[in-house]
């Protein structure tokens, strides 16, 4: 089932520019229920708070390289917690090497997108998670 337009999405990236790019791409796709975190640490807190409030995120879009908690550490934390085991997680990274893909897949990533990407490519990666 495709991701609904009112789906609750969190964008986690330490760079304001990339958060804004992803946010604007998602807005153009019709998604309006968007939240942001500037690192994996506040992102993890927001994920837990959203779950406890009964309104969990439908999709996490997270950068890999962040100074506090990296995207891969956040993903491992999520997958090791029963409540979030199946939470859709799209990893964004600037590093396109094969070994990174393998690490992310082993950690249980739902899909993987390498920068640079267009809105069409982002949509395609999200669609593949929810097909």
């Amino acid at each position, binding site marked *: 089932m495709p991701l609904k337009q009112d789906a609750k999405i969190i964008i986690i990236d330490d760079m304001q520019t990339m958060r804004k*790019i992803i946010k604007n791409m998602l807005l*153009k796709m019709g998604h309006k229920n968007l939240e942001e975190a500037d690192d994996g640490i506040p992102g993890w807190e927001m994920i837990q708070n959203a779950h406890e409030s009964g309104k969990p995120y439908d999709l996490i879009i997270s950068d890999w390289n962040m100074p506090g908690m990296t995207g891969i550490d956040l993903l491992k934390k999520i997958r090791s917690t029963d409540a979030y085991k199946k939470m859709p997680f799209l990893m964004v990274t*600037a*590093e*396109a090497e094969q070994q990174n893909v393998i690490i992310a897949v082993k950690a249980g990533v739902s899909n993987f997108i*390498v920068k*640079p*990407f267009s809105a069409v490519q982002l949509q395609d990666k999200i669609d593949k998670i929810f097909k």
Partner: protein
Amino acid sequence: MSTHEKFINFSKPFIDGAKNVFKTMVFSELEHGKPQLKSNPIAKGDISAIMGLSGKLIKDGQETTFKGMFVMSFPESTYCKVASAMLMEEHSEITDDIIDVGAELTNIITGNAKKNLNPDGYFLDMSTPSTVSGKDHKVNYPSNTIVIMIPMNSSHGEFFIELCYQDG
């Protein structure tokens, strides 16, 4: 392989990466001008994004280390137009809203270059990019290194790529 040859091999993936990133995320084709040797630390642009580089080169069974820097230096007008295109919103001056656009560009381009340097034996470690701005600001390169500057032309205006490479 001479340092000069290594420099050429090392630089090309950054130029190709910049072209790829601009085409996809800035909606502009890039053309590069003639590389020039740069002999002073004054940046050509009003704002520069700087990525420190280090890593190892494995060639003919021998492993050596290297250091370098990748810099993108923009005149203010080009920077604002690039930021406006990338963020899909209008910006006419450099504010906190767009201050990390250049740093994000160096990050993405270096990520692309990193993959494309692997087949030539270069294994690159990326650092966190930084930004320096202001008229006639300086970019401090390591001493005794060669710095090349490559003028880049886009539909948003001219900017400059600067690269340095050093064995060791």
